[in-house]
Every structure is written in structure tokens, then in C-alpha cells.
């Protein structure tokens, strides 16, 4: 299995390009975030004064759909909103280049492009960015929106920020030359187990960011003087809470499956389905924390901010597992590492 150097070089170039594009997208999101709300605030004040406290599910924030019969001049979109639009297109472009980088890496080594830490990091970020784009798409198609696209995009910069950091770390400290896989990794289970783990990590990363923003937003909603600049421009707390919850709920069975697939693979590769290897243990710990999150949502007194903290804790466990356990603690998994 020789490594195709040309493809691998192209892959590296695509990787660097995608990081640059994401940085640009992030700046565009933050641009809209910083300057965008002014018009919305004006409109809010003039058009719909009674927006807070209208009970019901997920319908608290601003008016979303034009009230029938009111004439709106199809004015030119203000520039911050155009920044936001550009941010989304840029993100899509970044994701495409990013996906190409993974694809090229896979072609260069003729195997799955997630066989070491650099590749995991990269693939997880792609999953998270795709999760974000899916959220945007669904929201823009939804019949009953509870946040305008502009409000939702307020989250974009905060989703991309950790992604850019992670990618930077993957591309520098964790970078690994294209190489074939260790014998223990040469199994079709790497497709099943690792892709499930990568997708779940990416989506849970997104969920964790949404929960973190939820905590900040709630602090602002409880006392509008707190975090006035930041909190006031985030989507409403219900929206953030729902995004975090939906993402976690959608991915939890996948994450469970990823762990079980790992156990099935371990049975074939290491001679036992479970051996309390540090990586296995920490994955289980993260899983239990997410189970606790779901429980908390069904326990009175634990919904809302407390549950959100549990979700953030889950993310911490996932990141801890990805970095600390892989790099510092040497278990059976660590050959995938540096």
C-alpha cells in the first residue's frame, strides 16, 4: 500500500485552505453579530412590542413571519445581513474544501481518512460544521420558525470558533503524515465504529456549544444588564435549548451504537469486548453524562440551566477523551495517536 504523495499534498493544501475559509466565515458571522441587530431592534420597537412572555412552546422570541396584510417594502437587505448570508455561503464552501481534503487523504492512502489523531480531529470538525449547516437549512425551511435566520446565524461564529481552534491544533501539533494503517486498525469495523464516533463527536460538539450559549443567554434574559452586548444578540434561550436537546437526542443512539460497535470490534481485535481500557472507560463516562442529561430533562428542578451544564460537562468529557486520554494516557487506542 504505497502512499500517493501528490494526493496527500493536495489534501494538506485543501486542509489549510478550508481552515482559512472557516476563519473568514467566522469573521463574517461575528461581523453580522456585532452590527446586525440594530435594525432588528428598531423593527422590534416599532412593529411588535409584545414579544416577550407569550407562553406556549418555543414561541417567545421576535415575530418571525410577516403578518398578512401588512405591506413591507422589499428594501435592499442591510449590509450586516448580507454579511451573514456571505458567512453561510463561505461556510458551505469551507465544508466542501474540507471534505475534499479528507477525501484526498483517503485516496492517497487507500483507506478510511480517519486513522490517526489528525484525521479524527479533522473529520470531527467536518461533522460539526455539517451539523451546523443542517440546522440552518432545517430552520430556513421550517414552517414554524422560532428564530429568524439572522438570529440563528448569531450562533455561527461561536460554532466555528472552537472548530477553527481544533482544526488548527489538528493541523499542527497532531499532524501525522499520510501512512497506511496498523494491522489492528485494518478492519471494516473502522468504517463503522470510527465514523459513528466521529459523527457523534461532531454533533455533540455542536450541542455543547449551543448549551454553553444557552447558559449565557439565560443569564442575560434573567438580568438584561448582564452580558448585554453578547446575550442580547444570541437566539432566544428556548431556541438554543431546543437546538442542544435536539442535537443530543438525535445523536445519542448513534453514540451508543458507536460504543457498542467499538466493543464488537474489540472482541475481534483484542480478545475481549470490554476491558476498561482508558479510552473505553472515558467514552462510557461521557455516555453516562449524556444519559444524565436526558434524565435531567425529565427531572423537575433540573431542566434548563442545570441540564445545560450537564451537556457542557458531556462535551468536556468527549474532548478530554479525544485529547488527554489519547495523548497522555497510553492505552490500547493510543497507537492511533501521535
Amino acid at each position, binding site marked *: 500500500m504505497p502512499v500517493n504523495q501528490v494526493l496527500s499534498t493536495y489534501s494538506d493544501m485543501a486542509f489549510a485552505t478550508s481552515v482559512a475559509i472557516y476563519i473568514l466565515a467566522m469573521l463574517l458571522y461575528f461581523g453580522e453579530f456585532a452590527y446586525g441587530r440594530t435594525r432588528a431592534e428598531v423593527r422590534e420597537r416599532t412593529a411588535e412590542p409584545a414579544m416577550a412572555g407569550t407562553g406556549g412552546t418555543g414561541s417567545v422570541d421576535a415575530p418571525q413571519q410577516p403578518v398578512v396584510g401588512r405591506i413591507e417594502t422589499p428594501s435592499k437587505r442591510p449590509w450586516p445581513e448580507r454579511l451573514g448570508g456571505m458567512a453561510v455561503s463561505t461556510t458551505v464552501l469551507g465544508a466542501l474544501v474540507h471534505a475534499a481534503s479528507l477525501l484526498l487523504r483517503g485516496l492517497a492512502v487507500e483507506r478510511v481518512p480517519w486513522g490517526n489523531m489528525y484525521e479524527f480531529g479533522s473529520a470531527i470538525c467536518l461533522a460539526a460544521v455539517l451539523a451546523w449547516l443542517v440546522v440552518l437549512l432545517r430552520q430556513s425551511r421550517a414552517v414554524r420558525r422560532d428564530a429568524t435566520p439572522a438570529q440563528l446565524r448569531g450562533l455561527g461564529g461561536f460554532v466555528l470558533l472552537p472548530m477553527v481552534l481544533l482544526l488548527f491544533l489538528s493541523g499542527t501539533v497532531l499532524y501525522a503524515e499520510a501512512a497506511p494503517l496498523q494491522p489492528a486498525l485494518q478492519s471494516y469495523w473502522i468504517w463503522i465504529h470510527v465514523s459513528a464516533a466521529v459523527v457523534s463527536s461532531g454533533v455533540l460538539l455542536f450541542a455543547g456549544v449551543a448549551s454553553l450559549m444557552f447558559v449565557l443567554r439565560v443569564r442575560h434574559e434573567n438580568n438584561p444588564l448582564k452580558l448585554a452586548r453578547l446575550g442580547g444578540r444570541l437566539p432566544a434561550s428556548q431556541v438554543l435549548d431546543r437546538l442542544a436537546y435536539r442535537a443530543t*437526542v438525535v445523536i445519542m443512539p448513534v453514540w451508543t451504537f458507536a460504543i457498542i460497535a467499538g466493543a464488537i470490534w474489540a472482541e475481534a481485535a483484542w480478545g475481549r469486548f470490554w476491558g*476498561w481500557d482508558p479510552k473505553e472507560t472515558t467514552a462510557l463516562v461521557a455516555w453516562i453524562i449524556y444519559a444524565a442529561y436526558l434524565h435531567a430533562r425529565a427531572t423537575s428542578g433540573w431542566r434548563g440551566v442545570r441540564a445545560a451544564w450537564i451537556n457542557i460537562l458531556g462535551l468536556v468529557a468527549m474532548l478530554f477523551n479525544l485529547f488527554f486520554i489519547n495523548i497522555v494516557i497510553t492505552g490500547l487506542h493510543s497507537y492511533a495517536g501521535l
Partner: protein
Amino acid sequence: MRISSITAALAFLRNTWRGLTSMRTALVLLFLLALAALPGALLPQRPLNPANVEKFYDEHPTLAPILDAVDAFNVFGSVWFAAIYVLLFVSLVGCLVPRCLEYLRQLRARPVRTPRNLGRMPHHEQATVDSSVDEVMSATRRRLRGWRTSEHTEADGARSISAERGYAREAGNLVFHFALLGLLIAVAGGELYKYEGQVIVMADGSSFCNSGTYNYDSFRAGLTVDGTELSPFCVRVDDFDVKYLHSGQPSEFRADISYQSGESLETGVWKQHDLEVNNPLRTAGDRVYLTGHGYAPRFTVTFPGGETRTQTVQWQPMNTTTMLSQGATKFDPPGMPDEQRRQQNQIAITGLFAPTAAMDGKVLSSGFPALRDPAVAVDVLKGQLGVSTGRGQSIFSVDQSMVESGKLERVARENLRVGEEIRLDDGTVVRFDGVQRWVNLQVSHNPFQPYVLGCAIAIVVGLGASLSIKRRRVWVRAAPTGPSGSDPTGGAAASPRTLVEVGGLARTDQAGYGEEFTRLSGELLDSVGGSPGSAENHEAVSARGRNS
């Protein structure tokens, strides 16, 4: 007084039980479990890697004994870890039993009556349509196929249908929790009935039979296993091969093995199998894994009397990247019937083996893991090996106390390539003949493994159902109205008009019922004549707008 104290005790028990089975306790126990598992990932664990625990002891001489005292190096076998999960599972049982009963009750119950005021529901729409109440009702019945429904006629002549759906959510949730319970039981069963043994076999057609624990180099078993009833099978290792990349990274391990089990044990037929890292042999209910490999240098000793002895003994890899190995090959002198004399003239060849010799002055190291230019750097020791002292002997080294006490003496030190030899003062010749590969096999047996897998699948399926299915309710009320409003049956007038109201409520976590409700109520209203463009439809749209 007696009675009141009994009542008090019962109340206490009941409260404890309630406390233990409450959601909040489950939550706290889940946290505790996660927290308790963490040291198991962060600290070296004795069952996994005793050497790392030793290292930790050396590095933290004061902290280590304290940690050891609380079982921190054996977290998953500790009492406190067991206490947490046992409590959690007691809580789980206590929680599941009443939930099952409640679920059965719900399955038999009819959907709740339509509330008076549907406008108060989180989801609500209404429209006046050009259809009769009957038409609306039958359209509703059609649309709500697959829902559990019940119909009601109200005092003012209005009729309504209440419907509920998504009962499978709770079923999924119960399946999930029961499967979790089953998984724990199956794992515990496995702990009792499993065994696992390691054995080194030369890759030269040597074989190994699973006929008794004494055939193993190491053997671990559950409480119920006494080693007398191992699954019968034999394995022969015909050949072993490793492929390396230029970097020295192995790219493939493969052992060509043959095996006999069941019938073929009697007929003597050998079946072939390629034993690879991800491809264990599964036979006779056991699994055979390839877990390691190494080299065994072959030495021939020619004694002064002319007798020769040849031995090929596995040496232990010290470094898996270069396969530099160490070991000790031990010889008994021939033709010495006198036990004591024989014991005093034993020979041991001990030192280093390199598959690809890299010399640094006279110091041997290995430059590559494959057999390119094998060499050994050995000490030849003569004297008493102490094999019969009754102390456990490692096959990879000589007993150092014998060397220290002077009973075992070094008589030569030399680097040898294949074919080279050392001549000792007494005329004995030690020759390095060549190298044989060996493999490490692991035999594992766990009769509960299929149950563990079954429970794991049920966990995923149950969780998927529980998290993706929404338990939700919808109510439709049709009330006659319109120009001929005095006629409550709505049948006589030329164009019967009906006020249709739809209300919806998600019974589980709020996310995501709105979409479905909007679609459902829209389709329903359209199908009974709220056709686009009519004035009534306009009304419906604005009602929708207000509620979004």
C-alpha cells in the same frame, strides 16, 4: 406503641424506597458512577497493567499506598464501585416495575376527552368550512388512521375526536432500561463462566491443545471454572509472517494455523485458518487470538564428550518496534546420572537477540524488526541454575541469586551471528544455529457473550425508539354553524357550515411537534373544504400565523 413504631418503621422503609427510586436519585447515582469510573481511566490499573502500577509506586511513594488502600488501582473490582452500580440497578428495578404497570394501564385506557377550550392548547387552529359535521368527522377519522382515537358527542351538538399516538416511545424506553439490566446480568454471568489463557507456540508446526490449564503459560478463569471441562480443540501453528513498512511499522501479521475440533478431533483432519489480528479463530465455543509474536534463537551445545543438545526457546521482545529481545536458554549436561553433579554443570545462554543487528562498538542493538541480519549478544553461564530450588523460575532469565551466591558463573561473553560459535575452556562449544518465530495465542471462552450482544442491540433499538418517537395528542372538534345556524344537525341547509377546531399537545419533551401538527391540521382543514382562496382559509392562515 408497638404498632406505631412498626408504622414508623414501615414509613421509613417506604420513604427510603421512594427516595431510592426517584428520578433525582437516579440522576445523582449516574453522576456518581461517571465520577467513580474516572480514576479507572486516569490511574494505572492492576488488572490491566501491573507494571504501570509499580512505576506509579516508584514515582509517588507516599501517594500510592493511600490510593492502593482505597482500591484506586483496581477501580472496577472495588467494593465502592460495585456499591454504586448495584444501588443504581436497584433503583432501576424499583423504577421500572411501577412504570410497566402504568404503561399497561395506559395501553388499555382511551385517549382523554377533548378539552372544553382547545384555544388554550399549545398548538391550535380553526376554520369554518363548507362541509357537514359528518363529513368533517369522517375526514378526520381517515386522516387519523394509525392514531388511537375515541369519539365524543357533546351537549351542544358538537362532536369531537380525541387521538393519541407514540405509545411506542414508552415501550422503547422500557426496553432500553430492561436491556441495560440484562446487559449487566449477562456481563456478571460471563465473569463467572469465562476463562482466558495465554500460550506461546513455535511457528514450526508445533501444536497446542485446549485440554487442561497446565498447557497454558498463564490462565485466568471465573469462579465456576475449575479447568477440568475446557472446550476440546487443538491448534497447530504452521507458519507465521509479519510484513513491515520501510519505517518499521508492521503492516500485517498472519499465522497460518490448522485446527481440530468436534468431529475432526476423532477423524484427525486438520482444518485451515488464517489467524490475523482482526480475524480470530472461532471454534468449539472458544475464540483463539493472535496476540503477540517473537523470536526464538536456536542454540546447539556440544559437550566435551561429543554429545550435542539443541534447544529453541522463545525470547521476550523488549522493544516491539525493533524486536530486540532478551531471554535465557538453559541446558542440562547429558550423561550425568548423578543428580548433584548434573545440577552443578548446567549451562545457560542468556543475553540479547537482534533480528537486524546494529552494533554500537561491541553493544548489540536492533535496527529493524524483521529478520535481516540476526545476531545475539550472550553470556554463557555455567553452574547451578537452581531449577530445583523450588522457587518459581522465569523462562526468560536466570535466577540472579544463584549468580550472586557464586553457584552460577559467567564463563564467556560474545556476540554471535548465525553459524558462529564459542568454545569454552572445558571444550564445550556453543553455537548459534538460527532463529525460529513464535506466536502468542490467547484462548478466550465466554458463554454469555451472545446475550451481552443481544442486550446491546436492544439498548440501541430501545433508545432509538424512545428518543425518536414523540408521544402526542390531537383533538378535533366539529361544531355546526353557518347561515342556517338554527339547524343543529347541519344536514337540511343547502350549504352546511362547520366550525372545525384542532388542538395539539406534545406529552414529551417539547421539541418538534409543531411541524407535524401544522401539516396535519393543514391537510385536515384542506380536505374538508378549506380550499385555497376561500375566505375561511384566510382565517385559518392568520390563526396559524398568530400561533407560530
